[in-house]
């Protein structure tokens, strides 16, 4: 592989975003270097891919597995191409591997070509048109509905997904339950007849923010519950002021 080829690779923007998988990347390497697919040098191509991959890895560790698998496969192919084939019992010869790679690239190229050809065809609703005001014949009852197979299976997928969601189990959390808060408040006001700040119920040793919030929230909800029951009074003297709790004495 010449110096020149290495330089060209640098020109390629180092990103995998534009590629639809490793074969697509190989195909664009072929195109970038204007290599004739019929006279493809597999060794050159493999080297370029590996160089490219190497640079990508340095920039972005998050590389899709399929690029790495292809890289490993190409590295293996490269070693086979460079070393003479002495072990004939191996499952695949280097020629077979090269042929396969070439085939995959050509096939993808073929598919990309025809997918473009397809959309260059006359298109319904753009170049030719259907009957604008269709009439429907009543004998044919089933035409009343235009439910499609897609509607059917999509609906089923939604039912299944919904049912799966229903049976979600929530992992244990460190959150403080309203029930616990109710117990705390009740037992506290059994003995105390004074006004008490809601914030005082939050233990000082809570480092986790979420945990603090949950203790506060559950105590607030619990206090509302007790107000509703008629056993507690709440007071807030000004906006954003502290919330004070007081037992209601019957």
């Amino acid at each position, binding site marked *: 592989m010449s110096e020149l080829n290495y330089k060209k690779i640098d020109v390629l923007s180092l990103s995998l975003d534009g590629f639809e998988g490793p074969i697509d990347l190989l195909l664009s390497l072929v195109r970038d270097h204007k290599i004739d697919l019929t006279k493809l040098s597999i060794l050159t191509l493999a080297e370029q891919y590996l160089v490219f991959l190497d640079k990508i890895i340095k920039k972005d560790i998050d590389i899709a597995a399929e690029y790495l698998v292809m890289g490993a496969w190409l590295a293996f192919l490269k070693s086979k191409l460079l070393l003479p084939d002495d072990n004939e019992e191996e499952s695949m010869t280097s020629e077979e591997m090269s042929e396969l790679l070439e085939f995959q690239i050509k096939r993808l190229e073929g598919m990309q070509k025809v997918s473009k050809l397809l959309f260059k065809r006359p298109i319904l609703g753009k170049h030719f048109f259907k009957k604008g*005001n269709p*009439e429907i014949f009543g004998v044919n009852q089933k035409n009343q509905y*235009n439910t499609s197979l897609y509607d*059917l299976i999509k609906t089923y997928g*939604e*039912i299944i*997904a919904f049912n799966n*969601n229903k049976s979600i189990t929530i992992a244990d959390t460190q959150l403080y339950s309203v029930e616990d808060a109710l117990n705390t408040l009740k037992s506290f006001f059994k003995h105390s007849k004074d006004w008490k700040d809601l914030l005082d119920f939050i233990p000082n040793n809570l480092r986790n923010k979420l945990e603090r919030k949950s203790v506060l929230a559950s105590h607030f909800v619990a206090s509302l519950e007790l107000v509703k029951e008629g056993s507690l009074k709440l007071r807030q003297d000004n906006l954003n002021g502290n919330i004070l709790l007081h037992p209601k004495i019957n």
Partner: protein
Amino acid sequence: MKKLNEKKNENYDFVLKQKIVEALIFSSSDPVPYDELLKRIIDKNILNEILENLEKKYSSSGVNLYVINDTYAFRTSLDVSEFLNIEKIVPKPLSRAATETLAIIAYHQPITRSEIENIRGVSLSRGTLDVLLELQWVRPGHRKSTPGNPLTWKTTNLFLDYFNLKNIKDLPGIEDLKNSGLLDKNKVIFNDQSVD
């Protein structure tokens, strides 16, 4: 020679214009006003001749050119409409409930009514199964040998026919749904809120 060529061109032009008018009336969702056609053809005489031609051409067809208040439309001819029992039916999708029920029967058949209700989480209203029965997409199957011997439901050949399935097994399975993106949990939570 020149004249002949001109004549030929004129004729070609006329034929093309006639095709345009024909295609316009055919593809329009509403009857096409004369003025709309004139915008394309420009020459009134030519347009009139074209419309006369078309009326003649279609007069003995299964479809006629109708003129209603200076608007033009192709409609099924009266000769055949009596055989075809034409109704103006606007195709509509099945109700959500009916589609869900149909899908559940298709995937779980034979299935009893209460099993359907279990999966959907709501009770089955009367009309839902009736719609499917009327369409002949579902039919009663065996009775189940559980207490009460409930009736089971399954899909019909007409159902397979309508959805162009050779076999009920050809319905995509849950794995297929997942892989094709049709079983996306997050999507569903939002879908559920939207109005279908």
